[in-house]
């Protein structure tokens, strides 16, 4: 669930026709002073972070004058509140509050319907209110094909005892909140508190809106950087990873850092899961062996080798890890040789010295393990592959043994060298990268395994050199699945004539930065 800041949520409510306090978003004390001057009233300054209970955290200040606002803003801006650095404040007119209510719309997963929730006693401790004063709470399941028009809201609220103008205003607000919830693909939209002022007006004094991660693409106007639930701003590496996921629809790649700078003494490992349930189970297995995980990663849904490769490169951008653990459910339906190829390409490029235990059980696991075994001799660290009959616990134990035996080597992040294709190299575009073939090496090649390795029929021999058997457009559209088989086959032939370049925007700069920081 991608959370919105209060000021973003209020823009949405305002657009839907719900009254919000007059206000402005500011980033400097001067702007804060000017905003209060423009308002011409007493005001409130609120830090813009994804946290509830900001008042208790000292993130809300009431001010009477522009001078006070400037001073308060100077104190708030730049401070750290939990995991957030305060960058923005919302400056708003202070409301004359007569009464506080609560309104929200969420999704009831069991009924498969939106649920409108309204409380005439506010939203704090709503569970107890529901238990002790059931009359104060309204819940209503909405049929999405019918919607939630004002008259329905009016009918429900009048039964709670609201009358006259107030009834009309409240039902309009509730109906509009539902419309905004639907329009913006929200997982939840709450107004808390919903305020009735001394003048009898109804205002959304604060709001929490979370957008469905899967629908963020429909709402570019919200400027959501990473469509995931975070209780802190995303790290740089997470942003890089998210771009990879965004640019490749094949399979799923999820990357989340538990720590930004793993301390080697604390037993951190790089964690690479596959599939939600299998990842959780595998994570439990390593945690139970005294490891900590630096990151949580999941590549699943039949990802191509290129995506697994990128995931591994990103995991290996974390200095200080002492091992690499990949494990899923153990009986995956996806073609596991893709994962194996992606992993060995990344491990060879980065010349990893830490041990890696890779549990690639499932469809084509024999082939996957064979790939790992074949290439392990080109990787400095110890690499072991396991299948569906080896439990996560056993594999985690293996990693522990390898870490100890290897003298607890600490991973060092390597800079990414820019690839310069040999002059006159044959090349074609793939969905997310480019294949380069140095034909000058092919003349003396005996094995010529590249074409046979391409089971997708993308390559053929022409004058003794491998070239595209399909059109360039077809290759670029995904016919070349970026399975990496040709590159690795040629590598084994000792020629290294094929290089598949799979760029990860921002990673070279990131690695350079952290290697400098040392």
């Amino acid at each position, binding site marked *: *669930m991608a959370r919105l800041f209060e000021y973003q949520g209020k823009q949405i409510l305002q657009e839907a026709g719900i009254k919000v306090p007059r206000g402005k978003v500011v980033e400097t004390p001067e702007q804060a002073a000017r905003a209060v001057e423009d308002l011409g009233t007493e005001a409130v300054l609120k830090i813009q972070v994804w946290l509830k209970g900001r008042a208790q955290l000292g993130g809300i200040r009431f001010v009477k004058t522009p001078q006070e606002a400037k001073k308060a803003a100077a104190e708030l801006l730049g401070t750290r509140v939990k995991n957030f650095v305060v960058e923005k404040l919302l400056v708003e007119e202070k409301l004359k509050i007569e009464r506080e209510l*609560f309104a*929200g*719309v*969420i*999704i*009831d*997963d*069991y009924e*498969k*319907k*939106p*649920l409108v*929730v309204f409380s005439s006693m506010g*939203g704090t401790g*709503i*569970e107890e209110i529901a238990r002790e004063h059931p009359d104060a709470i309204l*819940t209503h399941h909405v049929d*999405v*094909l019918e919607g939630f028009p004002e008259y329905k809201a009016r009918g429900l609220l009048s039964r709670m005892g609201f009358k006259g103008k107030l009834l009309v205003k409240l039902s309009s607000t509730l109906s509009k909140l539902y419309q905004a919830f*639907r329009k913006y*693909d929200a997982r*939840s939209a*709450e107004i*808390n508190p919903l305020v009735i002022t001394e003048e009898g007006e109804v205002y959304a004094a604060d709001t929490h809106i979370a957008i*469905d*991660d*899967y*629908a963020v693409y*429909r709402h570019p106007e919200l400027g959501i950087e990473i469509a995931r*639930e975070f209780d802190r701003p995303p790290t740089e590496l997470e942003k890089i990873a998210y771009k990879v996921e965004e640019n490749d*629809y*094949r399979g*799923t790649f999820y990357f989340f850092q538990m720590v930004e700078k793993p301390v080697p003494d604390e037993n951190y490992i790089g964690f690479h899961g*596959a*599939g*939600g*349930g*299998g990842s*959780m*189970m595998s*994570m439990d297995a390593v*945690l139970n062996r005294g490891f900590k995980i630096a990151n949580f990663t999941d590549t699943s*849904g*039949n990802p191509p080798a290129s995506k697994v490769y990128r995931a591994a490169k990103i995991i290996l951008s974390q200095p200080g890890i002492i091992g690499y653990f990949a494990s*899923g*459910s*153990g*009986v*995956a*339906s*996806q073609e596991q040789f893709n994962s194996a190829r992606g992993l060995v390409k990344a491990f060879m490029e980065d010349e990893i010295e830490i041990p890696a235990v890779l549990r690639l059980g*499932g*469809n*084509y696991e024999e082939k996957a393990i064979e790939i790992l075994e074949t290439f392990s001799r080109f990787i400095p660290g110890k690499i072991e592959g396991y299948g*569906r*009959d080896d*439990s996560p*616990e056993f594999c985690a134990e293996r990693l522990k043994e390898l870490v100890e035996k290897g003298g607890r080597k600490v991973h060092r992040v390597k800079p990414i060298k820019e690839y310069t294709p040999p002059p006159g190299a044959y090349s074609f575009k793939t969905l997310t990268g480019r294949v380069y073939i140095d034909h000058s090496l092919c003349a003396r090649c005996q094995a010529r395994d590249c074409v046979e390795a391409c089971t997708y029929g993308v390559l053929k021999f022409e004058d003794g050199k491998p070239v595209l058997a399909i059109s360039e457009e077809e290759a670029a559209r*995904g016919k070349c699945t970026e399975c990496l088989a040709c590159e690795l086959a040629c590598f084994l032939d000792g020629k290294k004539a094929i290089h598949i370049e799979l760029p990860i925007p921002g990673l070279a700069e990131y690695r350079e930065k952290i290697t400098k920081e040392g």
Partner: protein
Amino acid sequence: MAILIDEKTRVLVQGITGREGRARTKLMKGYGTMVVAGVTPGKGGQEVEGVPVFDSVYEAMEKVGPIDASAVFVPAPLVKAAALEAIDAGVKLLLLVPDRVPIHDVLEIAAHAERKGTKFIGPNTLGVLSPGRAVLGMIGGRPETARQWFRQGDIGVSSRSGGITSAISYYLSRAGFGLSTIVHVGGDAVVGLPHPEVMKLFEQDPQTKMMVMFGEIGTTQEERVADMMERGEITKPVVAFIGGKAAKEGTRFSHAGAIVEGGRGSYASKVERLKKAGAYIAEALMDIPRVVTEVRRKHGLD
């Protein structure tokens, strides 16, 4: 008998000409599923794995006769349209395979499905497999592996994780047990056939003698299964394994969410409720065959 799918189910594949559609049609046909038609708008007249392709679900039904189930493999943003077409054409069981279907699209699909009396599984599901009979979706990956991994028998498996569906079923088969049907209900918050619905089907199925359920934190599916057990709606033994013990809790719950979940949804609450209702809890995945052995002995199931 099995539930949801068997060798007589007439299956349509929507999005049959795509990368996933093609690959999974091969699996389904190879395993014995009766795949009678495929649909990709604009590609009517082609053939995929010997299956005729049509431009619409309506046309497919006109040409090949009744369709019992449709497996949907179109990209996530197009799932809603494909599902609504199939529902409108009168298909009574849908399998929505894609991941990342917007939740509001699922709500709309659910509303239409309810009106037409259609069941849907997923989204974000690997599918359903009745060993020795048929597979709908992509469980098993290839016909050879699917045959090798899953034995026929009397245990019904229902799981919220795709990989774990296969894992539980494989480890049970390896231990010598057999399965009636295995169901991946889907990994999303809102799914068409959550655990309680699947359990209801297993309860009614004569072939199924006991159930194994894999649950996860979040939603109230597992607690509702416990409710049903207490109400006597489920009488066959249930073995449950809940994942996510180590995962942190709490972030997902909003004020209003607390009303629906009411303190439920956590690892502890699920395990406690299930235990109280008489389910048998396995502490680890690899522990399931042992727990199943005990439960079978206790209930005289061998």
